[in-house]
C-alpha cells in the first residue's frame, strides 16, 4: 500500500462527512466529531501497516517520501487531529453563542470537519520533499486554518485573530514562494533532496542569491513555527481563535513547520558553505526565541495568551534541538519533545476549554480555587503545567533533558545557559496557574461538571504525559 493513500483517505473522510452533514437531518452534530475521530483512528491504525513510499523513479517519488520523519509525524498529526475533533463537542456552547443561529446547530458541523482538511494538508507537508508540493500543502492547511481561526463570526477577538493570521500568514507565504523562486532560479530544481548536488555544481557567484533564497524560506518557516522575531502573530491569534483551533495551531501547525525546517537543514548539511551560516542563524534564533518567549510570558494574566507565549518558548527549546542536528540523537530528541508537547499542550487546552466555559473567561484568575471546585480538572492542569515547566517523571522533562543533552554534546554552552535561566522563568509563569488553582479561594463554590468525552481525553493525555515521562524509549526508537 502506498503512503499517499493515507492523505487521500483523510480527504475522502472529510468529504464524506461534509456530505453527511448536508444531507443527514440531525440537529445534534456531535456524531460528526465522533465519526471523524473514529475514521482518523482507523487511518492511524492503517499507518502502522507495512506501507511503502512511492517507488523510486516514479513520478510521485519526486514529491513525496516515506521516511522515519514523515511516518512519525503523520501519526503525530493524526493523533493531534483526533484529540482536537474530540474537543469540539465540548466547544458547542461557545459556537452557539457566536455564530448567527439560522438553525440550531448551524456551523457546528463544519467546525468539526474542517480540521480534517488541515490534517491532510499538514500530512502532505511532512511527507513532501519538493518545495512546490510543500507550498501547495501549506496553503491547503493554512487557508483552512484561517477559516477556523475566524470561525466565531460574532466575536470580535476571533475576527481580529483570523484577520491578523490571514494577513501575516499571506505575507509569510509570499516570502516562502519568493524564496523558492530564487532557489529554483539559481539551482534549477525545487526538490530538496536534489539541492546538495545542484549546489555543488554552482559557480562561486551564485552562492549569494542562493543564500537569499534560503533566508527568505527561513523567514517564512520562522513565522510558521513562531520563532522570534516572527512570533508577533502567535499570542494574538491564540488568544482570539476558538480554543480547539488554538490547540491545533499550537501543536500540529508548529510540528509541520519544524519538519520542513528539518528536511531543509538535513539536505543542506552536506553543503559546508551554506550549512555553517545556516546553523549560526538557527542557534541565534533559538537563543532569542527562548529569551523572548519565556520573558514575555511572565506578566501574562490571560491563560490563552500565556499558552501562546509558552508555545514560542517551546519553539525555542525545539530550535535548540535543531541547532544540534549534528548529533545522531537530535532528531529523536526533537520527536520526543514534540510527543511530550502534544500531550501537555493539548491537556492544558482541554482543561482551559472546560474551565473557560464554566467560569466565563480565560484569565488565570478564573482558575482560582479550581482544586476545590473540580479536583480532577485542577489535577490535570497541574500535571500539564508541571510537564510544561519540566518536572521529572513528566514528558516535558524527558523532552527537555534530551534536548539539553544533544545541545551540550554539540557544544552549545550559551544556549544551554540561556535554557537554564528560561526554565526558571517558566517555573514562575506555569506555577502561577498552580497557585491560582490551589492557593486562592474560588469565587463560586459550585462544582464544575466534566463530560465523559473530556474525562476520557484527560485520562488519555494525562496517562500519555506520565508514560512518556517514565518510559520514553519507544518514541526515541521510532526516530533513530
Amino acid at each position: 500500500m502506498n503512503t499517499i493513500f493515507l492523505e487521500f483517505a483523510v480527504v475522502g473522510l472529510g468529504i464524506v462527512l461534509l456530505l453527511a452533514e448536508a444531507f443527514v437531518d440531525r440537529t445534534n452534530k456531535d456524531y460528526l466529531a465522533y465519526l471523524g475521530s473514529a475514521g482518523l483512528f482507523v487511518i492511524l491504525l492503517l499507518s502502522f501497516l507495512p506501507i511503502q513510499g512511492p517507488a523510486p523513479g516514479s513520478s510521485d517519488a519526486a514529491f513525496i517520501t516515506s521516511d522515519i520523519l514523515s511516518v512519525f509525524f503523520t501519526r503525530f498529526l493524526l493523533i493531534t487531529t483526533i484529540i482536537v475533533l474530540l474537543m469540539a463537542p465540548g466547544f458547542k456552547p461557545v459556537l452557539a453563542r457566536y455564530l448567527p443561529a439560522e438553525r440550531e446547530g448551524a456551523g457546528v458541523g463544519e467546525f468539526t470537519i474542517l480540521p480534517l482538511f488541515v490534517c491532510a494538508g499538514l500530512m502532505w507537508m511532512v511527507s513532501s520533499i519538493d518545495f512546490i508540493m510543500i507550498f501547495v500543502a501549506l496553503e491547503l492547511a493554512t487557508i483552512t486554518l484561517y477559516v477556523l481561526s475566524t470561525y466565531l463570526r460574532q466575536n470580535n477577538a476571533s475576527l481580529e485573530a483570523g484577520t491578523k493570521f490571514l494577513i501575516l500568514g499571506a505575507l509569510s507565504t509570499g516570502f516562502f514562494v519568493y524564496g523558492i523562486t530564487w532557489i529554483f532560479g539559481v539551482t534549477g530544481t525545487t526538490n530538496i533532496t536534489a539541492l546538495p548536488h545542484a549546489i555543488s555544481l554552482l559557480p562561486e557567484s551564485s552562492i549569494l542569491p542562493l543564500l537569499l533564497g534560503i533566508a527568505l524560506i527561513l523567514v517564512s518557516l520562522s513565522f510558521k513555527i513562531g520563532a522570534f522575531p516572527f512570533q508577533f502573530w502567535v499570542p494574538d491569534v491564540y488568544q482570539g481563535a476558538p480554543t480547539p483551533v488554538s490547540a491545533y495551531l499550537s501543536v500540529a501547525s508548529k510540528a509541520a513547520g519544524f519538519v520542513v525546517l528539518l528536511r531543509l537543514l538535513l539536505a543542506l548539511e552536506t553543503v559546508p558553505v551554506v550549512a555553517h551560516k545556516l546553523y549560526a542563524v538557527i542557534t541565534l534564533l533559538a537563543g532569542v526565541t527562548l529569551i523572548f518567549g519565556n520573558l514575555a510570558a511572565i506578566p501574562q494574566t490571560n491563560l490563552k495568551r500565556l499558552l501562546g507565549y509558552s508555545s514560542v518558548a517551546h519553539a525555542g527549546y525545539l530550535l535548540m534541538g535543531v541547532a544540534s542536528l549534528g548529533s545522531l540523537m537530535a532528531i529523536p530528541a526533537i520527536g520526543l519533545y514534540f510527543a511530550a508537547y502534544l500531550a501537555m499542550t493539548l491537556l492544558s487546552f482541554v482543561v482551559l476549554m472546560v474551565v473557560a466555559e464554566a467560569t466565563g473567561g480565560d484569565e488565570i484568575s478564573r482558575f482560582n480555587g479550581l482544586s476545590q471546585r473540580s479536583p480532577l480538572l485542577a489535577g490535570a492542569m497541574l500535571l500539564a503545567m508541571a510537564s510544561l515547566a519540566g518536572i521529572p517523571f513528566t514528558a516535558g522533562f524527558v523532552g527537555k533533558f534530551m534536548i539539553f543533552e544533544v545541545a551540550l554534546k554539540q557544544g552549545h554552552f550559551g544556549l544551554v545557559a540561556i535554557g537554564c535561566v528560561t526554565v526558571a522563568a517558566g517555573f514562575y509563569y506555569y506555577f502561577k496557574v498552580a497557585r491560582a488553582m490551589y492557593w486562592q479561594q474560588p469565587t463560586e463554590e459550585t462544582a464544575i461538571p466534566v463530560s465523559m468525552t473530556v474525562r476520557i481525553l484527560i485520562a488519555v493525555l494525562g496517562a500519555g504525559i506520565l508514560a512518556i515521562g517514565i518510559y520514553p524509549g519507544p518514541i526515541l526508537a521510532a526516530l533513530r
Partner: protein
Amino acid sequence: MSPLLLLILLPLAASLLIMVGANPRRTALGAALLNLVLSVLLFARYDLHAGGWQFVSEWHVLPNLGINLSLGADGLSLTMLLLSTLVTFSALWIAPRIEKREGLYYICLLFISAGVIGAFSTLDVFFLYSFHELALIPTFILIGVWGSGDRQAAAWKATIYLGAASFVLLVGLIALYLSLPSGIRTFDLRQLDQLAAAGTFHPASWIYLLLLVGFGTLVSLFPFHSWAPPAYACAPTPAAMLHSGVLKKFGLYGLIRICLPLFPEAMQQFSVLLVLMLIGNILYIGYVTVAQKRLDWTIGYSSVMHMGYIFLGLASLTVIGVHGAALLMFAHGLSVAAAFALCGEIRRRTGTLDYSELGGIGKVTPVLGLLFGFAAMASVGLPGFANFAGEILVFFGATFSSIYGPAMILAVIVGVWGVVVSAIYMLRAYRSVFWGPIAARWETLTDITPTAKWSVILLLVPLMIAGFYPQFILNMVGTIIPR
C-alpha cells in the same frame, strides 16, 4: 518484589488510595509505619561484612543512554532511608487536624516522602535527580496553602530558586555523562565508581563547580541559601520537618556519591572556595541566627548554619571527616525535625513565636519544655547526642586533612567558635520561650499531647542512641570507604 521498590511505592499507593477517598490520616500513617518497619528491617539485615550495594534490582528504561531504574542500598543509603522513614512517620503523626482538603495535605506529604526515599535508594544518577524533584510541587502547594507568615513569597522564592538550581545541577550531570568516553556512557553510579577507582576517568573541573552550585543550593550552601529560612519558617510543621530534616540531606548525599569519588582533584583545587563558602554558612549565618527574634526563623537559619559543618567534613577529604559528615547528616536530620515539630506545637498553642511575646511557658508546658531542651542541646552539639559525635569527627577530619592549609585551619577555628554561637542562639531561644516570668495569657496553655510527645520522642531516642553509641551508624556509613 524488591524491598526498596516497596519503600518507594507504599507512599505513592497511599496517595492513590487517598485520591479515591480513603481516610487520609490513617492511610498515610499506615503507609509511613510500614515504611518505617521495612527500613529498620533493611538496616538491620544489611550485611556489614559483605559491604557494597545490596538489595539491588534493576528495570531498563533507556538502556542506550545508560538510564535504568536501578535500586540498591549500601550503609549510607540505609542510614538516610532510616532517617527519612523516621522523620516521615513523625511528621505525619504530629500533623495537626486539617479541616479542609485534608486529602491534598497528606498526598503532598506522601509525595515528598516518596521522592526522598526514591532519591536515597536509587543507583542511577538520572533517577537520583528525578526523585528529588518530585518534592518540588508538593512543597509549593503545602507552603502556599497551609503555611504561615508571608507564605506566598516564601513558596515562590523556594520553588523558583530550587527549580533554577536543579536545572544547573541537571546540566552538570549531563555534562558529566557526556564527558565519559562515548562507548561506555552511563548514568549508573556503580559503573561511575568503577571508572573512578580504575583511575582512568578525569572529568573537567568546571563540571564539579556546576554540581557544587547545584547540589549546594539544594543544601542551602552560602551564598545560595536565601530560599531556605523563609521556606522553613513559613512551611507547615510536617513540611518543615521533611524539608530541613531529610530533603536537604539529598544534596549532601549527591555530593558524597558523585563528587567525592569522581572529582578528587577538582575538590582539592577548589577546596579553598568551598571552605570560604562553608565559613559563610557557619559564621555569617550563625550571627544572622543570633539576630533572629522569632523561634521559627531561628531554627530555620540554624539549620542552614549547621550545613556548614557537614560541608567541612566533605571538604576535608578524609575518611574521618566524611564519616563525621554522614553521621552529622543523620543527627541533624533528627534534631532539626524535632525542633520544628516542637516549634509547631508552640505555635499551635500560642499563635505567636516572637521571643518578646513568649516567656515562661515552661511552667505550664513542662514536658514540651523538656523535649525542646533535648532538641536544642542536640542541635548545639552536647555530648550524648549524635550531633556531637558527628561534629567531633568533622573537626578531627578537617584538622588532619591532607589539604591542611590556612583555609582549613580557619575553618576548624570558625567551626568550633560556631558551636559557641549556636549555643548562644539556642540557649537564648530556650530561655526566651520557656523560662522567665510567664505572661498572664499563657497561664492556661495545655502541655504537649501524647501523640506529639511520642512523635518527638521517636526522633530523639535514635538521636541519643547514636549519641552514646555512634558506632552503629558509623559502621553503616563506613561502607563507603572504598569510594
